[in-house]
């Protein structure tokens, strides 16, 4: 149900995504994340088009962390920032991070080894139902996501913007 992928550029690093809906304790999870008790980025899935977008953001975050060029303070913050089409960090958090009243969450974990124990650890903390990650588009709010990008599929426009925004 969760989705794990190895990053080709960093073969010892993996990105795992876990999706939950009908979440009742978003506020508590958000607090835990801020205290550092959840080792993952909590993303608002209604702003996402698909899992590929998250991989692109995570790949860029890991790359910038390795080269010491992150714009934010932690890897998880960087992942959320990278999802945003703009260079404003607070705006990125407001739109792509989770708020206390949210009912769905995507947890993104960057980890080294093959172990997936943490998935059950995280699921134990979430008061909600796990969904296959590929179903994330069923939660998407396409009106919120659509911006000036007119060309082709929405995912392409979003990913292209994410990749190039730092030199705009």
């Amino acid at each position: 149900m969760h989705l794990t992928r190895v990053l080709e550029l960093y073969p010892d690093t993996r990105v795992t995504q876990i999706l939950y809906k009908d979440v009742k304790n978003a506020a508590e999870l958000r607090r835990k994340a801020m205290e550092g008790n959840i080792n993952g980025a909590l993303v608002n899935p209604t702003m996402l088009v698909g899992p590929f977008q998250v991989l692109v953001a995570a790949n860029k975050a890991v790359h910038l962390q390795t080269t010491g060029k992150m714009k934010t303070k932690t890897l998880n913050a960087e992942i959320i920032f990278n999802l945003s089409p703009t260079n404003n960090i607070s705006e990125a958090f407001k739109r792509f991070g989770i708020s206390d009243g949210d009912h769905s969450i995507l947890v993104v974990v960057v980890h080294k080894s093959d172990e997936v124990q943490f998935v059950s650890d995280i699921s134990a903390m979430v008061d909600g139902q796990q969904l296959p990650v590929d179903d994330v588009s069923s939660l998407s709010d396409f009106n919120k996501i659509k911006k000036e990008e007119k060309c082709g599929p929405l995912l392409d426009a979003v990913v292209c913007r994410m990749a190039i925004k730092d030199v705009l």
Partner: protein
Amino acid sequence: MAVPQFVGKADLVKQGAEGRVYRAQFLGKPTIVKERFRKRYRHPVLDEKLTHRRTVQEVRSILRCRRAGISAPVVYFVDYTSHCIFMEEIAGSSTVRDHIVSTQQANSCKELELQQLAERIGRILAKMHDEDVIHGDLTTSNMLLRCSSQDTESDLVLIDFGLSYISSLPEDKGVDLYVLEKAFLSSHPNTNVLFEKLLQSYTKSSKKSPAVIKKLDEVRLRGRKRSMVG
């Protein structure tokens, strides 16, 4: 460093003076990696500045074109340390050059089809220039026809924005068209009428075309074997 290792294992597709192009799988997608390698014959500081600037310009131009509704490869990731651009591989496509060559060789009455293609190209270039994007290397090899699964019209995709930049000057747009004209007429003999159709379509579609065409005429009078008598 990660990217050079990754690139070392990828398939080299082409090597030019500016850089190398590889094919690989990246995050589950077929990807083209464009690497601008270091030029040791240049002064290191200059080389870094130039290479960085060209990478940035290429990527900005692609995004600008996409936002204007022009098909260009999706960029997945840019590494500014090794100057590598990871972008979408346009699968199942042929260059406009190959398409024109094969259509002409087939000798069937496909004149109309080629004219429609020329008109499409004119419209797309008009849109691009109206966005103030100068491609810099317009040739029929840098335009791809992406075949779609259904019987709908294939998508015309512009590629290789390596020499592109942003400019509003009619001179720059005129030169851009001149480069295409030269490349077009030399790759495809006896296509003057076809190229005329392209220019007509461009003139009709672009809001700023009169100044650009005027400059194109001026540029044509320059160059080799041309009399500069005014």
